[in-house]
């Protein structure tokens, strides 16, 4: 078990280092998936199988899919060369963070502690989650709902929204109109509005995917 822990820890550290240093965004995100899998293995070795499964399903599954969808939606390949970080920019932050890390390592080393051993299974976690922590579950559900609404609001086009809404509700009534000229004009307007609606619809799968973790949790 100990060997498994250290191997997985090494994989997690290397993969995470690659996440923050790769300039290709898709490569970085795939390394992040590797890092999350390694952390899931670590959760297994710590005797927390339920959380390990959640790590794979929600983090590596749902959240990383959100990232990949966003990257594909935004087509960011052109930006990468402009945003390449000069090697010199790493020095200051890395030194400061290394000092903080050294302090944490020193503080942790002061007192030696071993784990209790044995695993805490899903039943114990669920009993605790829906017993004393049930208020937290309700708050988490409200947070996820607020995030859903907020993401929809933030990602939507502010000026395009009313026109799209109007076209959406006007379209079924206008379509069977007998007036040829009016129908033609309405049709032209509709196709224009439909283009806007299509552009706006592109953000809808993101919202949909954003809600998936909510259901899973």
């Amino acid at each position, binding site marked *: 078990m100990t060997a498994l822990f250290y191997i997985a820890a090494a994989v997690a550290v290397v993969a995470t280092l690659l996440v923050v240093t790769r300039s290709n965004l898709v490569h970085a995100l795939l390394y992040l998936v590797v890092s999350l899998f390694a952390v899931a293995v670590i959760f297994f070795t710590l005797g927390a199988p339920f959380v390990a499964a959640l790590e794979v399903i929600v983090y590596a599954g749902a959240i990383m899919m959100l990232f990949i969808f966003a990257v594909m939606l935004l087509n960011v390949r052109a930006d990468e060369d402009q945003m390449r970080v000069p090697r010199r920019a790493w020095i200051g932050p890395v030194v400061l963070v290394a000092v903080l890390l050294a302090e944490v390592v020193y503080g942790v080393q002061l007192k030696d502690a071993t784990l209790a051993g*044995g695993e805490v299974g899903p039943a114990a976690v669920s009993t605790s989650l829906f017993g004393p922590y049930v208020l937290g579950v309700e708050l988490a559900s409200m947070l996820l709902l607020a995030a859903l609404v907020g993401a929809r609001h933030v990602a939507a086009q502010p000026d395009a929204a009313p026109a799209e809404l109007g076209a959406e509700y006007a379209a079924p009534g206008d379509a069977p109109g007998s007036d040829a000229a009016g129908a033609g004009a309405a049709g032209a307007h509709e196709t224009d509005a439909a283009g806007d609606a299509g552009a706006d619809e592109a953000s809808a799968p993101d919202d949909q995917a954003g809600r998936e973790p909510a259901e899973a949790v």
Partner: protein
Amino acid sequence: MASVSLNAALILAGVLFSIGFAGLLVRRNLIVVLACIEIMLNAAGLAFVAAGARWGHADGQVMFIFVLAMAAAEVAVGLGIAIRFRHQFGRLDVDDADEMKG
């Protein structure tokens, strides 16, 4: 069974958090910044689970579930902001959003 020491798990959480933090400070791509925040939240969750495993209690795992829910909410809003950012500035460089002189 679990002969891993708590110290090793906490140090690993610290290392992962530090890598994420350094990336957050240096990188300028908004999506990478969000990924770094995910790394840091994940490291915090690892510390929670390790501390729960220290005493054999389920509370650490419950806290990890709450961290997970928060990370999901944060990334949904963050990627929504990324989409708006891209529409507004044409690229994802966080230095473009300097209107408030931050």
